[in-house]
Every structure is written in structure tokens, then in C-alpha cells.
């Protein structure tokens, strides 16, 4: 096992709870809630009314993949939020748990250690969430299949399920998550850098510093949007302009409609075309600077 792989493993062991255990608990609770709803027969009534109001056809609908595609947005949001806190915490975790001197006794530079923390945030943990999203989808499909035994209308709504569409969603989700994380990388690196300086105060400091910069700029430019505020606003927004633009016909639950939206061939090029790549690459450079500064600060630290 190489040094980098070992350092990634160390990050995984230290921070796995938010990525390995919590999503499993969330999926379990969702399935439990769904099962309870079906068991109490309330889902049946609700769905019948909904179907009637929408006037949807009585067969050939792929509600499963529709829900799965939307859930990817939820998983990406969860991953982004957890990674924000991961970076805020992990950059100073060796100091917090008093193991800084031990890691410094090993033939690994501070830059390599910080780099491995960043790499773990961009590879190991997103991969775990991606796997969870797939496990969640399978569990969801199983739940819908079982529910269709109790509630015929669910079976009708799910009768158009196409697993090839599911695979396409998963691959598209991979691209979507990776691009999203790479877009937010400078923000992750910034909060990580603040973590090395201020440890548990990193998140409040992150908010305060960015708010102060925007506020001071607003005073200087008399309330108009200054360049820094525009830059920050752009960075906080998602890397795509709109999913409607990426997925014309979003909301179409017909199997063909869903498949055309999420198919790797359609989604990925359309999505990547919307990304501001210059801003993306500049963001990586900024992230690199923050990671380097954090490692230099760590190099000068001896203890908590």
C-alpha cells in the first residue's frame, strides 16, 4: 500500500461517520417512513388522488427513476454540505486529537498530508456517497415493488421502470457530483485553511470573513455589486446555469422522457457545456494556494 493510499485510508477511518453511517441511517429512516405510509394505506389514497389530478396515463410511468434522478440532487447537496464540514474539521484534526507530533515523526511532508486530506474529500467520500445513492435506489425500487403488492396504483406508476435508465442516472450522477465538488473546491480549501488557523471556529470565521469582505466592498461602492461580491456570488451558485437548460423536458415522467434527460450521451455533454471552465480552473489554483498555506502553517505548528 503506497503512502498516499495509506493516508487516504487514515482519512476514511477518521471521518467515515458522516459518509458511511449517516447516509445508511437516512436511507433506513426514509424506507421506514415509506413502509409505514404504505402499511397505513395513506400512500394509496394520496397517489390515487394525485394521479387523477395530473391526468397521467395509467401505465408505463417510470416514477422510480424520476425519484432517483431527483434524489441525486439531494445526495449531492448532502455531500457538499458534509464535505464543507469535513474540510473545516480535518485540516486541524491532527492538532485536535493531539497526534500532530506523531504524524510529523513519519516521512511525509505537511503538504502531502494536506494534499491527502483534500484528495480524500474529492475521491473517497464522494465515491461512498455515490455507492449509497445506488444502494438507496435499489432499496427504493425494492420498497416500491413491495408497495405495489399492497397498492396497485404504485405498481402502475412504476410499471415503466427501465434499469438501463438507472445506470445512466448513476453515471451522470458521477459526473454531476465531481464537477460540483471541483467547482466548490476553493471554498472547501478556504474553510480548511481557516480550520488550520482557528480549528472549531473555522465555519463562523468563514461566514464572517466573506460577509465582511462583501459588506466592506458594498460600503466602498455605495451599495452596488462590486467585483468581489459578484465573484463570491458566482462561486456560491451551482456550476450549471439551470438543470432545465441541461434537461429540456425535465418533469416528464414517461420512461422515454426520463431516459432522454439522464442518458449519459445527452446529459453529460450538455452539463459540461454549461460549466464556466475558466472559473473552474482559477478556482483550483486558489484552492491550491489555500492548501499550500495551510500546510506551511501546519509545518510551523508543534502542538495543539
Amino acid at each position, binding site marked *: *500500500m*503506497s*503512502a498516499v*493510499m*495509506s*493516508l487516504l*485510508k*487514515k482519512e476514511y*477511518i*477518521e471521518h467515515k461517520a458522516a459518509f458511511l453511517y449517516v447516509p445508511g441511517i437516512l436511507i433506513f429512516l426514509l424506507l421506514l417512513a415509506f413502509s409505514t405510509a404504505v402499511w397505513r394505506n395513506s400512500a394509496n389514497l394520496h397517489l390515487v388522488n394525485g394521479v387523477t389530478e395530473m391526468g397521467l396515463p395509467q401505465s408505463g410511468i417510470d416514477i422510480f427513476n424520476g425519484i432517483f434522478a431527483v434524489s441525486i440532487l439531494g445526495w449531492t447537496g448532502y455531500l457538499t454540505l458534509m464535505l464543507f464540514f469535513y474540510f473545516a474539521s480535518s485540516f486541524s484534526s*491532527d492538532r485536535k*486529537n*493531539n*497526534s*500532530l*507530533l*506523531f*504524524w*510529523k*515523526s*513519519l*516521512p*511525509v*511532508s505537511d503538504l*502531502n498530508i494536506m494534499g491527502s486530506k483534500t484528495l480524500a474529500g474529492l475521491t473517497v467520500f464522494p465515491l461512498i456517497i455515490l455507492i449509497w445513492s445506488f444502494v438507496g435506489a435499489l432499496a427504493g425500487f425494492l420498497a416500491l415493488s413491495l408497495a405495489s403488492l399492497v397498492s396497485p396504483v404504485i405498481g402502475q406508476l412504476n410499471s415503466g421502470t427501465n434499469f438501463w435508465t438507472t445506470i445512466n442516472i448513476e453515471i451522470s450522477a458521477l459526473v454531476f457530483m465531481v464537477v460540483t465538488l471541483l467547482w466548490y473546491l476553493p471554498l472547501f480549501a478556504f474553510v480548511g485553511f481557516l480550520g488550520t488557523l482557528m480549528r472549531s471556529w473555522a465555519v463562523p470565521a468563514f461566514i464572517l470573513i466573506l460577509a465582511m469582505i462583501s459588506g466592506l466592498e458594498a460600503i466602498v461602492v455605495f451599495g452596488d455589486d462590486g467585483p468581489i461580491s459578484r465573484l463570491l456570488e458566482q462561486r456560491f451558485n451551482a456550476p450549471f446555469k439551470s438543470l432545465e437548460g441541461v434537461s429540456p423536458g425535465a418533469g416528464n415522467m414517461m420512461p422515454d422522457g426520463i431516459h432522454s434527460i439522464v442518458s449519459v450521451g445527452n446529459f453529460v455533454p450538455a452539463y459540461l457545456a454549461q460549466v464556466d471552465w475558466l472559473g473552474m480552473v482559477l478556482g483550483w489554483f486558489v484552492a491550491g494556494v489555500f492548501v499550500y498555506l495551510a500546510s506551511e502553517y501546519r*509545518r*510551523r505548528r*508543534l502542538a495543539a
Partner: protein
Amino acid sequence: MPENENIVEVKGLSKKFGATEVLHEIDFLIPQGRIYGLIGHNGAGKTTAINALLGLTDYQGSVRVLGLEPYQNRAELMRNVAFISDVASLPRFLKVSQLLDLLEGIHPNFSQSKALELLEGTDIRLGATIKALSKGMLAQLHLAIVMAIDAKLLVLDEPTLGLDITFRKKFYRRLLEDYMNEGRSILITTHQVDEIEFLLSDLIFIREGKIVLDASMQDIARRYIQVSVREEKLNDAKEQKPIYTARVLGQSIMIFDGLPEDEASELGTTAPPSVSDLFVALMEREPAGTGAVQ
């Protein structure tokens, strides 16, 4: 590195924290195959000097460890240097087996099988989480880890702090029997100087950031002599300007610097001074350094 070359070369090492200078241009060498004790009071500058050797802090002056400048080359240096600065610094969230696995991947000179061998006979279970280990077990585990690293220099900064005497004795005996060989050097700092006296080949005393003694144990035995002075010889003994005088069980004990053995034996019963007595003698002496401690 050629044989018999110095493992550590320190020249004019100074370190300031703000306006306070804690090391004042100290010089010393550590050749291959020696066990050095770096002894001093709290705040004397021992840990700062060690941190400079290990590349953990910047400094003024020249430091070379295994031919490398430590501060700019810490990661490379740690391939051949192992250290324990604080036994409580092992990562508490890992299990023992996980830690050994990670070290096998991270450290090119770490042998997991050697570590497992060293842990045999201890109460440490591989499945135990490090945070669940007692302080003694932590020290045993940390020692097993550094002893499983094929390093040329081992630095131990107060490695047995807070441990009971049985364990401290075992710790140092194991170090000497299972680790030390001609190709390695060890640098130890501790407050329990008497406990490491038997394993030291050289001694450095540091006081207020300055080295007050840097000599091999043989040279120390030749240079310093302790005399239990007979009552009738007390005045004669005082004329020889002892560097240390104490009354123990009604007996006058004096330590002399450079007094020939035959002259000393005329004053009373002679013996080589213990490291702790010599430490007290040299540390309590005025910086100018000639007056006896009365």
C-alpha cells in the same frame, strides 16, 4: 553515509521566541553508535534543541542531521530518524492493527512483523482502540513502533514521563537490548537521570540555553571525582575547591573537577559521581563556574 561520520552536527544553534532567546549558539556532535543523554532543568532548552534537530522548528545557526538540513527536509529525514516526543500523541481514533497497517504503507523503513514481534508478551491487543489503552500500554506501543523502524537516529524526549518505575526500567532495558547497535545513535532527554545512567555513552548538560557539559561517560569518570571526605580532611578538601558539597547522613560529600585520583583518595573514599549528583553540581554552580556550591 560513511561509517563513523557524525549523525548530528550542530554549530552555533540559536533559537528565539519573540524577544526571548532560549538557545544561545550551542555546538555539539553525535557520532554513530553512541547513546547521548541531554539533561537540563525545565525550560533549559532541551526540547527546543531536539525540535531543531528533528526539523520541527526553524532556528539560527547550522544543524545537519544525517547530512541534511532538518527544517527544509523533515520528511526525507524521517526515513532514517525515529522519535517519541509524547507517548500520548498516537492517533486515538485508530485501532492498534489499523495503525500498524498504515505505518507499513507510509514508512518505507517500518516493519510490521517486527512491531508485532515486539508487542508479543504485552497486554496490547491488536483489535484494541488506541484511546482505550493505558498510559503504560501507549508507551509500550509507541516504543514498539519506533523500534520497528530501521532508523539511524532515535530521539526520545521524556519518553517515560508519568510511567511507573517498573515500566521505566523495562522500557530502557528493552531499548538497549533489542534496539541499540553500532549503526544507530540514540538521544534521550529525561528528568529521571539516574535511570538512564547505565545506558548512556555520552552526556550533555544544558542550562539556560547553553551547554555546560558535553563529554563521554569515560571522560566524565576521568575528570570528575566524588569523595566522602573524612572529618579531619575537611579543610584540605575545601582548599581543592570542590564544585559541589553536601552532607549526607553526617558525611561530607564533595565533587571535584580535575582532582587527580591519588590526591582525592587522601581526602577520603573516592567514587565516580552519579549523573544526578554531577547534574546538581554543575547546574547549581554560578555561570562563571568556579565556586563551590555550599
